[in-house]
Structures are given as C-alpha cells and as structure tokens.
C-alpha cells in the first residue's frame, strides 16, 4: 500500500471512531479564538487611542496658517512651515542618494550574484543587520563619517579650512537617512524582482536579448511598481525618524529656509521632540505640539497607504499576466 493510501485509511478509521467533536476540542478552539481575538483588539485599541487623542487635540490648531508660517515667540505661536520644507528637501535628497544604490544592490543580489556563494550570503546578512542597527547609531555614524570625515575633508581641500560642509548640514542628514533606509529599498526591490515570472525572462533571452537587455527592458519595468513601493516606504520611514538627523543636520530653530546643501534644516519629527522637551511655556506649546504630530502622522499614513495601493495594483497585474 502506498503512503498516501495508508494515510487515507488511517484518516477513515479515526473519522469513524471520533465522528463528533469532543468537548475538549471545542473548548480548545473557543479559548484560542477568544484569546487571539483579544490580542488583536488590544493592537487595534492602541492605534485607536493614539489616533483619537491626537486628532481630538490637534485638529483645533490646524489651519492653513499653521502649515504656511514659521514658528514664533519661542515656538509658543506660529506654524511649522520651515519644518515641512526641510523634511521635503531632506527626503528628496535621501531618495536621490539612497534609492539608486538600493535598487542596484538588489539587482546585483537577485540577477547577477551567484545564488549560494559566500559573498552573496555575506551581503544578505549585512543588509539584514543594517536593518537592525538602532537609528541613533546611524546618527553617530553620520556625524563621524559624513560630517567630521567627508565634510571636514571637503572643507580642507576646497574651502581652505573654512567651515562649510564640516558641520551638520542638509546633505549629511539626507545621506545618513539614505543609509538607514537602504535595507527597506533593497528588500522591497528584491521581492519585486523575485515576483517577475521566469517565463518573461526566458521570452526575452530566447529572442536573443543579452542579460543586461533582459534586466533593463523586461525585469526592471515589470518590477517597477514594487520598487516604487519600497521607495515610498523608505520615504515614510525617513520622514518620521529623528535620531539619524539629530547630529547630522536638523536644527532646533531656523528663522529662514535652508539655502543650500550645507545649510541646516528643520524637520517635523525633530520639531516634535523640541516642542515636547524644550519649550519655555508648556501650556502654550501643547496645541502646537499636537498639531505637529497630527501632520507628521497624516504624512506617514498617506505614504503608507500609497505603498499599499501600489503593491495591491502590482499583485493584480502580475496575476493577470498568468
């Protein structure tokens, strides 16, 4: 008798013996359903409490003026306009610097690197570990490497020792954040490349395309929506992090918008920290703090939802292709 036939006959006899669910079975199922359901409710409740509290307290102070004015009177009045601009600029530079490197790494790992070589494994472990490094460590790395080593070096060579790039700056903060978000981009891109059907690669190669042509004209376009998802997630992460920009470019308060790459900048995430800990008048700052958090949350949510929508569309497309 074959193994499957044996299994089937075993199932049959046990079904004859125990055709009804025992009380023990039923109790076990019920208690598992209730306890796991409760755990899910706790998660939902936490998110709910955060959202309700922030929307409830933050929505009053929210206005066009809040979004378009600079902070005034020691941050007890005014808006967060410079912080929003600073974040947009930082995130833009971060994307420009990080996404190409991340996408290229993923393409190397998935398309070119020998699948089981020691080097490939090492790179994968490095990426996984990079994702696990605490963000404050990235901040210190940015200060040490970008600001004090690269920046000071540039100053020495091009500016005769005058401090231009050898201090915290928009550029260094963006690069530090790019390093932090690299794993997000790499993992998302690799997943997208993996989802490209083998049939499409073979179709291209069978037409006499080189590997490079196949990657550029078939694989990457097919994976582009997945790559975009990774990019959006990186942006969302970069917008919310504080620690990496703390030492590398974020300013406590700036009366003007950043002038260039070597300027410092304000960021909503750091601004939240400043408002919460450094305010001279806690009561006056509170509504501003709530509204800032609300804006920050809304931004992150919108980005995450965009990523989910793009990903869902990719899944639909790739299922259509089959």
């Amino acid at each position, binding site marked *: 008798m074959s193994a499957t036939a044996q299994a089937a006959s075993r199932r049959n006899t046990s079904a004859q013996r125990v055709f009804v669910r025992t009380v023990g079975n039923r109790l076990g199922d019920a208690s598992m359903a209730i306890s796991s359901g409760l755990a899910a409710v706790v998660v939902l409740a936490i998110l709910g409490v955060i959202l309700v509290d922030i929307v409830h307290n933050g929505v009053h102070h929210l206005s066009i003026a809040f979004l378009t004015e600079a902070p005034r009177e020691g941050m007890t009045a005014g808006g967060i306009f410079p912080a929003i601009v600073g974040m947009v600029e930082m995130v833009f530079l971060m994307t420009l610097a990080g996404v190409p490197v991340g996408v290229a790494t993923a393409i190397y790992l998935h398309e070119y690197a020998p699948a089981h070589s020691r080097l490939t494994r090492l790179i994968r472990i490095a990426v996984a570990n990079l994702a696990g490094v605490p963000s404050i460590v990235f901040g210190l790395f940015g200060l040490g490497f970008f600001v004090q080593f690269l920046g000071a070096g540039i100053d020495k060579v091009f500016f005769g020792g005058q401090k231009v790039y050898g201090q915290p700056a928009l550029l260094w903060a963006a690069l530090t954040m790019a390093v932090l978000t690299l794993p997000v981009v790499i993992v998302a891109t690799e997943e997208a490349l993996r989802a490209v059907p083998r049939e499409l690669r*073979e179709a291209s190669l069978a037409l006499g395309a080189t590997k490079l042509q196949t990657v550029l004209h078939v694989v990457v376009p097919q994976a582009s929506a997945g790559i975009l998802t990774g990019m959006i997630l990186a942006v969302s992460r970069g917008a919310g992090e504080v620690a990496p920009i703390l030492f590398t470019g974020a300013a406590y308060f700036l009366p003007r918008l950043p002038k260039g790459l070597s300027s410092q900048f304000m960021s909503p995430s750091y601004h939240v920290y400043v408002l919460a800990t450094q305010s001279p008048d806690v009561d006056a700052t509170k509504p501003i703090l709530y509204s800032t958090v609300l804006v920050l949350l809304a931004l992150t949510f919108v980005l995450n939802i965009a990523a989910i929508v793009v990903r869902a569309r990719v899944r639909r497309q790739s299922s259509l*292709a089959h």
Partner: protein
Amino acid sequence: MSVLAPNVTPATKLIVRELCIYYGEKKGVGPVTMDIAEKHVTAFIGPSGCGKSTYLRALNRMNELIPGCRMTGEVKLDGDAIYGAGVDPVTVRRRIGMVFQRSNPFPKSIAENVAYGLRIGGLKEEREISMRVERALQQAALWEEVKDRLNDNALGLSGGQQQRLCIARALAVEPEVLLMDEPASALDPIATAHIEELINEISADYTVVIVTHNMQQAARVADYTAFFYMGELVEFDRTDVLFTKPSNQRTEDYITGRFG
C-alpha cells in the same frame, strides 16, 4: 543504444552528436544523436518526464539558465558548433528562436511585443520595424485580428491569440530554426488547429522542432518524429514510418497507447 537515422533527403540544419544533459551528477537526457532536416517539422514525443523538453532547450542553450545543468556532446547549426568555446549563447538564440508552453507575452502593446526582438537587436528605423511587425503578425495568422488594436496591451488577447503573438514575436527576428515547447498544450481545440496550420505554413521557410505530448498532433504536423523514453532517444524516423511501422517495441507500445 541504437539510433536509426532517418533517411534524410533534405539538407540537414542541425546536427546533434552524443548529446548528454546532466542535472548535477544525474544524467537527465542522452546520449542523443540525430540530424534535423532543414525547412521541415521535426516532433519530439514521449511520456512526461522523458526529457524531450530538456533536450529541446539544449538546442538553443536555454538550459544553461538552470543552475547545475550541464552538457556534453555536440550540437552544430549549419556546421557551427553552438557549444563551441567562446560562442555567445545570445548569438545562438538569435538564430534559433523558441516558443514556450505557456504563452508569455510581455506586458506591453501588441506591436511592441513583436518589435521587442528587433529593437534589442539594434534596429532603430521605425518604418522598417512596423513593416516587419506586420509581416510577422501575418506569418503568425494574427494580423487580421489585431491590426486595428496594435497599441492595446497584449495581455488582453485570448490564450490562442497570445500564443500566436509569441510565435510572431519569435518569427520577427527571422531565426533559422524555431523551437516550440508544447505550444498548443494549454489551448482549446480550435486554437490548437490554428497553431498546427501555422506550423505547416511556416515550415516552408523555417526549420521547426516541436515538442508535443499529443501523438495525433505529431502525426498531423511533423515530417519526422523522435520518440523519447526515460531520457533516451528510442527511435527517430519519418513520421509515417514511426507511426505505422515502428522498429522498436517500446515505441510501438507507446503509440498504441499501452503506456504513457
């Protein structure tokens, strides 16, 4: 193993000598020795897992995309060794095209699917490209159905149309040999009839090698048929001879439906 070489009167396009294909240490197929006739249809038949698809893919070096797969022996296209030292598989695949079991159009427009091979081959002139796209679609008997919607996405076509599009795409680059890996196995009888008719027509200009699990299909479309069993080439002959007077007992058992 004895190989009865068919009494080849037409010119020989592909010469295969002692070809063995290994997965890791395990031999998958071979040794195979055969001559494939120019501008005729040659079919490979045999039960699932007999190695006929693996062997087909060895003829345009598609197997080397599979890790751990390696080959010994010789394959020559018009006298050029396709596994010779320094031979770029890309140049082999330009001369030996392939159509797969599952239609695999790119998620691009109908016209761009057919134009793909031309563009990557370096053709830039748009007029020339659209002319050759039209000719390929006509050769694949698809032109009349799609000429008014060349810019629509190819994934909107029916299964049979998608497969004919893949044939058009392969023909557009004007290969000398067209390999077809069970091209109609996922299609309904009407679409299958279309494809078979098409194979008959293109064999006037192209050398066609087709893998099929459908013996009637082999009998209908092929001039020569090879029977594979457990990785071995059991018998290779003119199709009418193989199906009416097989010289090997296993071939006879298979084609009379005693196994497989």
